[in-house]
């Protein structure tokens, strides 16, 4: 079959492509410049010197290599926080979808409410609570709130409802498998695409989390990359300003690399998830 092409639509898509590619190109090109070149050469072309590798070295060693520490912190928050959030959301979503029990509707109402409340709005009350617990300025101040993902729970609930046929569960029960065993051997596999989607969402939101660590942590040693890089960027402001935009830009580039890798590795699961159930 011959596909009809629309010139207008193609044009719109080209514009959209440029819109998404140009900032990335700028980031890549800017990461090759020294601070002086950044300020004196055009944004979308190379500078007078090629400082990409020295920028990377400087970024990794500036302030006794605190960037690596921030990277490590971020990975910790993402692995434990987002990983834990996915685990909890999967188990809870599956339970809510597949078992009938009292209070299920109430949970649903609370959940919908929770999805509507942005995390930023809760940050200050959470700070006061954690401060009473003596948990501010510790890694737990970031990890514990990250474990709660109302949206992930909702997603897993909806996904489990359709992805795990009741007949399959009945069959497993008749064969004598316990509920826990059924969950791990039968359901989990069917839920994989949903889990990966939840994981990706949780990962991105934890990786990008800014406001919560900003107010919870005052020790630079515990910062994730988002807060640390902002601090570097703010260094360019006001009395005694010391701009290090070249390091901020190179740091930002290095920051997105792990996310890109995670997406590339996980996308095949995601795609199969999107098409699951479309053909019967």
């Amino acid at each position, binding site marked *: 079959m011959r596909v009809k092409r629309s010139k207008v639509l193609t044009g719109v898509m080209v514009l959209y492509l440029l819109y998404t590619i140009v900032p990335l190109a700028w980031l890549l090109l800017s990461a090759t410049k020294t601070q*002086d070149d*950044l*300020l*004196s050469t055009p944004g979308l072309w190379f500078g007078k010197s090629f400082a990409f590798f020295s920028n990377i070295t400087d970024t990794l060693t500036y302030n006794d290599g605190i960037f690596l520490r921030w990277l490590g912190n971020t990975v910790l928050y993402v692995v434990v926080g987002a990983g834990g959030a996915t685990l909890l959301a999967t188990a809870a979503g599956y339970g809510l979808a597949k078992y009938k029990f009292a209070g299920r509707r109430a949970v649903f109402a609370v959940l919908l409410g929770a999805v509507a409340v942005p995390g930023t709005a809760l940050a*200050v*009350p959470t*700070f*006061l*609570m954690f*401060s*009473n*617990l*003596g*948990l*501010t*300025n*510790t*890694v*737990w101040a970031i990890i*514990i709130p990250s474990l709660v993902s109302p949206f992930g729970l909702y997603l897993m609930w909806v996904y489990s409802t359709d992805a795990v046929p009741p007949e399959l569960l009945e069959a497993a029960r008749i064969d004598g498998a316990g509920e826990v065993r059924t969950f791990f051997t039968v359901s989990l596999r069917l839920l994989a695409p949903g889990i990966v989607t939840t994981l990706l969402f949780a990962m991105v939101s934890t990786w990008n989390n800014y406001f919560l660590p*900003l*107010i919870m942590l*005052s*020790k*630079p040693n515990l910062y994730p990359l988002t807060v640390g890089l*902002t*601090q570097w960027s*703010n*260094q*360019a*402001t*006001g*009395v*005694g*300003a*010391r*701009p290090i*935009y070249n390091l901020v830009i190179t740091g930002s580039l290095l920051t997105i690399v792990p996310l890109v890798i995670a997406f590339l590795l996980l996308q095949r699961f995601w795609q199969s998830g999107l098409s699951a159930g479309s053909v019967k």
Partner: protein
Amino acid sequence: MKSHRWGVRRLVVAGAALTALAVVAACGGGSKTDSASSSSSTGSADAVDAALKAGGEITYWSWTPSAQAQVTAFMKQYPNVKVNYVNAGTGNDQYTKLQNVIKAGSGGPDVAQIEYQALPQFALPGSLVDLNQYGFSQYESAYTASTWASVHAGNGLYGLPQDSGPMALFYNKEVFTKYGIAVPKTWDEYVAAAKKLHAANPKAYITNDSGDAGFTTSMIWQAGGQPFKTDGKNVTINLQDDGSKKWTATWNQLVQGGLVSNIPGWTDEWFKALGDGTIASLPTGAWMPGVMESSVKAGAGKWAVAPMPTYDGQPATAENGGSTESVLKQSKNPALAAAFVRWLNHDEGVKPFLASGGFPATTADLKDPAFVDKASAYFGGQKINQVLTGAAGTVVKGWSYLPFELYANSIYGDTVGKSYQTKSDLNTGLKSWQDALVTYGNQQGFQVNG
């Protein structure tokens, strides 16, 4: 990994008591303010010296580039005092954290860097230690009048001035010469220069201003306006007083005529524009030379400094920027914290600050011939400090900031900023800023007239 083990134990406690604590936090949040302890901490000048001798440990939050060097020098001089230096964030980020730890009642530093504009916001609700009790008022003659006024709120003394920023006109001599523009002495001449420059080169602007609260308040200050008056509880806001209107009458011509660049300050684009002549002048604080030397290398040899243009040709200027170090009420060792503040801004601590390019608030340093007559290579050999120290003596008196200045600055863009965007009358923006501030102030429990 001691801290992690601690964390796990607390985690167990947390899990058990989570529901209960949510209730406690909800009920107890309001009662833990610092005002209750205001009478408990009294001291004297002797207490400060004794605390220094006894030693101890304090935490210091600051983002000033010289902080690390200062802390190192202090601990070398007083080995029995340990200062934990933390860069908790720059400006607003740090204030957010300070406000949170004050609300929470614990977790704050002993000493924190606070800008003059933010000081009333922390001092008036009683979160800071009044240093009068340590006899620090005796140091008045050591500082310029304007910075000494800036570390006061009500009758309290909440820090010793660290730096000052009397405003001067920084201009690109090369650009001015190229287009035959004389250095403006009055604001009328400045507007004329803006027109001449932009007509000769449509890409060049006399200065940039996309709406900046700190700049606006400084300019109203210079024009003799006193839009904010407060005794702590009662606040008067009048952004249409004579000074404010004097400033808008001048600045409207620049904004409405499209004669100022809309490049926001402190961006890479701004640093670039300062170097390549797109922005030809900056009316800004005396701390600017250090910033230009380290960050606008392309402008070396091109820039010069002149006194601020004025409305009537008589010398007058305002402060822009600058900060102090304050002792928090939360501090468990306020006398030692006060001793550290005294060392930072009155004793040896001033030297590392000056070495990092800071502009002093101490009259002795401002009079020091070695400082005043130093020729600056960046500014083509000009003895810029002669101009800048001159400015320090002509700051208009009587200015004060709001006790909620940080909030005011945060909504500036939504109100006055709109006038900039639409190139319309700044008075309209100032009025809506005032309305929003009156509403907010009353909600916060102040008695606001405006």
